[in-house]
């Protein structure tokens, strides 16, 4: 008995040590840095806006946008996820003022994390803006252009499964 207790105590200690040794434990992924840094001022727009997290992120369904003071989209194209970093091409910016980097990325434990970072452009650039983010989003993520809607398949599957199961589990009537 005492051996068993000792083994348990040692195992527990080892487990705690291993977990604490793994570094700062956060519930979900958190942003450790961004480029441009949050609240910073830049004279020229960066090649790419980058958000870096404390752990590798999942590559699918990531969004990263840079929206300017004019309300236009200044990031170009789709974001790329590489390990803990998510980046999107930006290039030359337009009017001076506050730019917002908005991100939404799925972390390793499956929960999406989202948030914003801002930076200020101090010298006017000569880049061309993209569309307003709202209208663009509805077109790109509306889902209609993306194949058939899913719900009829799910409803049909559930009905077939539930009906089949109910039929299979009916009480034998009279026969036995």
């Amino acid at each position, binding site marked *: 008995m005492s051996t068993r207790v000792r083994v*348990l105590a040692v195992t*527990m200690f080892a*487990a*705690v040590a*291993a*977990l*604490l*040794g*793994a570094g*700062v*434990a*956060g*519930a*979900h992924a958190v942003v450790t840095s961004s480029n441009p840094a949050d609240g910073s001022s830049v004279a020229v727009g960066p090649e790419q806006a980058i958000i870096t997290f404390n*752990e590798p992120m*999942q*590559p*699918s*369904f990531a*969004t990263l946008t840079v929206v300017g003071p004019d309300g236009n989209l200044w990031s170009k194209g789709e974001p790329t996820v590489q390990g803990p970093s998510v980046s999107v091409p930006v290039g030359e910016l337009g009017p001076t003022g506050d730019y917002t980097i908005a991100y*939404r990325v*799925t972390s*390793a*434990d*499956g*929960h*999406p994390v989202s948030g914003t970072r801002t930076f200020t452009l101090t010298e006017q650039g000569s880049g061309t803006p993209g569309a307003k983010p709202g209208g663009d989003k509805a077109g790109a*993520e*509306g*889902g*209609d252009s*993306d*194949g*058939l*809607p*899913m*719900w009829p*398949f*799910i409803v049909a*599957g*559930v009905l077939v*499964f*539930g009906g089949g*199961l109910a039929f*299979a*589990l009916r009480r034998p009537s009279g026969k036995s």
Partner: protein
Amino acid sequence: MASAGARRRWQISPRWLLFAAPAGLAGVGVAWLLARPASPDPSSLIRVLAVLLGSTVLGLTTLEWLQRSEPRPVIARGQLWRPIAALAGAWTLAEVALVVAAAAETTETGAGALSSTTFGRFLGDVNAGQIGGATVACTTAIAVIAALAFRRGADWPITSVAVLAAVALASRPVTGHMSAQTLGSLLGAAHALAAALWLGPLVAMALLLRARGAWAALLPRYSELAWRCVAVLTVTGVIDAAVKLGGVGALVDTGYGRIVLAKTAALLALGALGWWWRRTWVPAAGAHRMQAEDSLRRAVLEALAMAVAFGLAAALATTA
């Protein structure tokens, strides 16, 4: 006359176990109030139902093992397939709803607007989707196996179903909050399975045992399993909470910490109840000195209390 009528109306029946669903949802509600301004994901309402159903399925598969030393089985294997199939069917529906909810959240689309391509990408590329799909596959397989065994009166070993149920129950915790840490997945799985093995066999007994002799055979066995589950649950839960919170202050300052405190209170209350019944109910039932109805009442009461704790747990798992 009147009192006899009242007693009759309040007669305990296994149907009362259905109240485990509102009890679990109430647990989520309590956690939601405690967590403010943080908030558990709404999917925890489905999650608690899924876990309660899954635990019951796993519990039903353990009955055979609990009566292993009986000269004559109290519960025949043939009696188990039908409830396993029905509960696994309901469990599958809950898991499907969870996958769809997760897909809608990850892709920022409404569940109705989700396209088959996007859903396919979610199932294939995102680990939450892969896990969800695998879980649905497991629960569907359980329902199909059990339904076939019931129809054909087959004498198939119940272990296959037990393993599938354990895998399905452990899959989410394995990839959950703790998965970022070394051994974290292992602890998460152990925690979830210990909880399921504490609740599941109790619900299964309440569902199927009708005779005093049956309780006498199974309850002492379950009691031995239960305290081991409580031990595993406590150790893994304390480690998880210590690592996640990182300090005593966070217990009160964060929504996560306050739910952990509520879970601790629930564990202490359930532990005290279990300890007391281990000294009174278990010996009495084991010695055939307790009516089956009295045993059933205690089992249902304890299962409902545990369901509240399961609600807290489901909410905690989806609180940032």
